[in-house]
């Protein structure tokens, strides 16, 4: 050490604009060689980059002072530092990372022994990447033997907080009472309303399912399973009908799409696409927002769950927002999050393979319409709604965010991210090629006439044969609870038909049927009202399926194209205003954690506008439907 210690505490708090990476190549190489990062997938390491910045410090600078808050760690890039424990020098890996064990203060002094270059990482970033150990662990116990000041046991890490117990005992009790009373009443008086025993028993079973779902008494799949079991036990229909959902193309399409989603998520292809788009796009808020909007739209047909899409893209938005220098909860950061959210969710009804609800409704369509409306025809028919929504959203966003902060994207960070990603890896090639082949096969359905469900199953089989997916992925990456829900819902819908309840409903709702034929707008208003009421209690899929199971058969009877009705139901069922109504909004908030980049109130206000856009999109489609003979 040539000079006396230089206190660096103030100089490390440099303003955001000065946080940069000085040598992208060297930093990328350092990150890859750092032992603490061994085993990290490249795309995760690339996601880490926007949070760190490089500092060059002269010899003698104090990086950590024992007893001071351990709020940042340092990854050595060049030079060496000396630890006060035994005077040893360290020239690679991390120092000052007490935060990893949630130790509140540094346990030793760390001083630059030579001129050094380090990457600065804050405690929050370590936490966000899951590098934190709260409470008492073997590491704390071992460290306590060796560090002179025993590490204080800090509280458990955020994220592992206690379950948010928001169950309201009174509501739950009312739910259980109704779940017992309503089916009992149906069983007692059902025949008085002209129902046969099959219809009576099935209605009772269905009421149990719906009440359990409405009052959140059990998870959705459990409620559907219970209804299915009751139908089987009471023999309201043959098992082959009640369980028919599990032998349906909708179920297998869901299975295949989960496989595709798992590979896309694990490959890091999404990260590479986003980084490259950001690199190529002009330096303006419009283009950055468009990047996320289009990424979301591109992913919509490839990943069959809005939850998964939002979960995959939310961290990328957070990282990009911070890398662009947007303040958390600022208008620009909120806009970026909204663009991603809209891209990943608003266009779900436009693509057959975007959501489980779409599969279920597709399975419920009459056979002829089902076969006709495969992926391409579906997308073309819904395209006007999609384009109108896209145009209106861009217009609304442009008007709302006329004056925003200028982005300050650090090109050096982006360069480092791309360097860390390196050349395209085999798994990315596989994901890319298979996805392209999948989309091509689906788009060319009219040529080969192979049901897209079997194409999707083929994609899954290819991944399994190539070993890109294995048994472990089948457990970890497939949402079997969702597949059970899909299977039972399709089965219950078929049972509804088998028991003849559909015919009864058709008769009862003949007034609405008349609207359907004569005044489609009035019909949409009724449909919207019913769906909105149901959506106050039921999640998107459940409400959508329920409305579809009543109105799709009606459409068939009244000669209105069932797909148009199904599409309208999907558009209306996706409408939401309260956070509790939308699971993928909750997913986004969960991932954002305690430090969200978006302003919640502003986000919800803007969401209300997108809901209006959705309705306009639906209404704007009606002339198009008429022009192509669907209405």
């Amino acid at each position: 050490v040539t000079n006396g210690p230089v206190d660096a505490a103030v100089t490390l708090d440099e303003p955001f604009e000065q946080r940069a990476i000085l040598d992208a190549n060297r930093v990328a190489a350092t990150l890859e060689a750092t032992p603490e990062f061994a085993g990290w997938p490249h795309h995760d390491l690339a996601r880490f980059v926007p949070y760190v910045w490089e500092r060059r410090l002269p010899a003698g600078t104090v990086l950590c002072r024992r007893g001071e808050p351990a709020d940042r760690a340092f990854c050595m890039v060049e030079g060496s530092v000396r630890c006060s424990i035994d005077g040893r020098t360290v020239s690679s890996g991390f120092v000052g990372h007490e935060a990893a064990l949630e130790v509140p203060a540094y346990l030793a002094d760390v001083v630059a022994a030579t001129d050094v270059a380090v990457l600065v990482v804050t405690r929050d970033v370590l936490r966000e990447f899951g590098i934190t150990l709260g409470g008492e662990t073997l590491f704390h116990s071992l460290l306590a033997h060796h560090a002179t000041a025993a590490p204080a046991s800090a509280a458990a890490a955020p994220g592992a907080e206690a379950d948010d117990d928001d169950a309201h005992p009174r509501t739950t009790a009312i739910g259980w009472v109704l779940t017992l009373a309503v089916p009992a009443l149906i069983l007692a008086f059902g025949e008085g309303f002209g129902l046969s025993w099959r219809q009576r028993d099935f209605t009772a079973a269905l009421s149990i399912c719906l009440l359990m779902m409405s009052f959140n008494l059990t998870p959705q799949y459990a409620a559907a399973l219970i209804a299915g079991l009751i139908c089987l036990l009471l023999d309201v229909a043959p098992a082959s009908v009640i369980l028919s959902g599990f032998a349906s193309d909708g179920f297998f399409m869901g299975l295949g799409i989960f496989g595709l989603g798992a590979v896309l998520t694990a490959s890091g292809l999404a990260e590479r696409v986003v980084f490259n788009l950001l690199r190529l796009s002009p330096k303006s808020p419009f283009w950055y927002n468009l990047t996320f909007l289009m990424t979301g739209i591109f992913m919509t047909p490839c990943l069959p769950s809005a939850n998964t899409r939002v979960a995959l893209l939310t961290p990328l938005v957070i990282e990009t927002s911070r890398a662009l220098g947007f303040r958390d909860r600022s208008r620009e950061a909120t806009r970026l999050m909204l663009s991603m959210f809209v891209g990943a969710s608003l266009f779900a009804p436009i693509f057959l393979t975007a959501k489980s609800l779409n599969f279920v409704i597709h399975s419920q369509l009459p056979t002829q319409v089902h076969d006709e409306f495969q992926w391409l025809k579906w997308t073309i028919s819904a395209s006007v709604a999609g384009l109108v929504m896209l145009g209106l959203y861009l217009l609304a966003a442009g008007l709302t965010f006329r004056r925003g902060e200028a982005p300050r994207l650090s090109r050096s960070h982006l360069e480092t991210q791309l360097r860390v990603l390196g050349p395209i890896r085999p798994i990315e090639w596989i994901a890319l090629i298979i996805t392209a082949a999948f989309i091509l096969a689906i788009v060319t359905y009219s040529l080969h006439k192979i049901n897209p469900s079997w194409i999707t199953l083929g994609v899954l089989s290819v991944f399994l044969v190539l070993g890109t997916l294995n048994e472990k992925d089948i457990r970890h990456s497939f949402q079997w609870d969702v597949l059970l829900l899909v299977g039972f819902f399709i089965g219950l819908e078929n049972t509804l038909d088998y028991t003849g309840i559909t015919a009864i409903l058709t008769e009862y709702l003949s007034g609405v049927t008349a609207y359907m034929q004569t005044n489609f707008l009035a019909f949409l208003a009724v449909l919207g009202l019913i769906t909105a009421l149901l959506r106050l209690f039921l999640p998107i899929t459940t409400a959508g399926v329920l409305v579809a199971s009543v109105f799709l058969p009606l459409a068939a009877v009244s000669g209105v194209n069932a797909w148009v009705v199904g599409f309208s139901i999907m558009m209306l069922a996706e409408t939401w205003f309260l956070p509790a109504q939308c699971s993928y909004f909750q997913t986004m908030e969960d991932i954002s954690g305690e430090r969200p980049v978006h302003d919640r109130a502003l986000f919800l206000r803007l969401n209300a506008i997108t809901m209006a856009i959705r309705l306009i999109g639906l209404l704007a489609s009606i002339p198009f439907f008429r022009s192509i003979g669907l209405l």
Partner: protein
Amino acid sequence: MIPEGVPRKEFLAALARSTILSQCSPQDLAKLLPFFRERRLKPGEALCRAGDLADDMWLVLRGTLRVMRADRSSQEVSDGLVGEESALGMGRYLTDIVAADDVTVAAFDKDMTPRVLRNQSPRTQAFGRSLVRLFAPPTDAEPAEAADDDRITPAAAVWRLAGWLTAIAAPLLLLRLFEGGSLRWEQQQLAAVLASAALLWIFGAVAPYVAGLLVIMVCVTLGIAPTTVVLSGFASNGFFLALSILCLGTVLIESGVINRIFLLLMKRCYTSTLRQDFAAMFAGFALTPIVPSRMERARALAPLALESTQTLGFAPGSRDSTRLLISAFMGVTLFAPMFLTGGAMNLMLYGSLPEQVQDATPGLSWMGDALVAALVLVAAYLATHRLLFRRSEASIGARHTIEVQLDVLGPIRATEWLAVGGVVLYAIAVATVSAHKVDHRLLALAVVCGYLVLGILGKHELNLHIDWSTLILLGTLIGLVATVVSVDLHIVIADRLAWLSDTMEFRPRIFIALLAACVMISGLWVPRAGALIGLIVVPLAMVNGMNPWVVIFTILLMSDAWLLPAQSNIYRTFRDMARSIGPFDERLFLTFNAVMTAARIVALAASVVYWESLRIL
């Protein structure tokens, strides 16, 4: 086992003083106790030196230890743990630890560390280790951690390649052979597809469930049979029976009640060798109809059996240790064919039967028809046991350890009551099917619904603890048998293999012998060979008027027969667990198993006579 010289209360107090061990669940702690080894140190004696290989961790029971630090200061430790480097996978101890006065510690091997203590993410572990090393630099190069080597050997790669080549060539060849023949188009296509998938399966080119998926994909794409038929396996009662039983088993295992029941059994039975073996075997027997996955049963019971060998004071690799492991292994595997829900393959083959046959074969009737085989196997086990294990060590100190384990477990928890309650309810419902007439395949699903409502079974367990790949195989196999029947391929095969049909019809004994030999031989290298054989033979039996249950039982009984360690992953699980704590007498185990394999043949022969008397053959 727990040091005899340390009173129960003092030991429990030492456990409670460890802030780390107190975070473990009672079940984890109870499992750890038998593996404790007492060690006494005189003042100045070293417990470990910096740079020594870190294999053990120690709980301080009495006295004070001194941990020497890198900055030449020291820390005195008189309770809690030392030697954490071992459990953290750091390879070597970082420092000297010496006794400051008379010290007693309880040592345990790093592999025995409760999982919850090692459960940190690999990322956090890397940062944690790095931070610790900053304060206590390693004095020696750390031994490299054994990396999981998933690479396949060149021979296996060639074998798989051969599988792919034959799987591509065989259907082309078959289709060429069928040209101009009497087979209908769909029969030709199905035969070709089945042959191709079977070759992929036999050569291990893909996992069996992937082969199944490939076949159904081709069948639905080519329109060989209606999709409702090809996919019928997934919409069958058999599929949901399997799903329900897997859920039931998951709840039972996750509740931890098996651990408690096993300890209570051992507490009553530890005094004599035969009783010990009875306890170990009975646990496996009792789990067989509730936990259909052999592997899950093995994962639940092998650690308990191993723990008992320590509790009973048997040295690793000793005859007594091996004896207890054999008994647990036999309990896990021997009775699988005797119950409808005893194994995944049972459910697969059962599900492939026509609905009427399934209805006519409830669980009780299955057990009744398998009774003779079960009795023969138990008799063979007892005889072999007597022959090989006449002289056994007396166990010492077991009661003390078991009582402390039960103390640690505490009172029975609600989830344990509910898990057992559900199983008992299911057993009663199955036993009284004739009274309530409810489809026996739906009873388990009803119990599962109860668990879902009570929140014992959740999304996490459903997604992660259920063997979905086996369920996919089950669904595809059931569907494929239906497809074979639907396109009458089984009739074509029966016509082409007239000698086989004749043998089935007129010389059933010879057919059973042939089938048994075929299953045993193919089991030497084909995974789940029985399921593959069943796919063809079960429909053939239906055509030729042979009771398909007899065929299924024969396949199941002989599928479990094995001679080479490579054939049984359950055996390898037992062996690897045993080797994790010391030597293992493989020869003795394999000898016992070879005798039991021969006993299976005798059991089958006896069963044939029994079935003939019952007129089911």
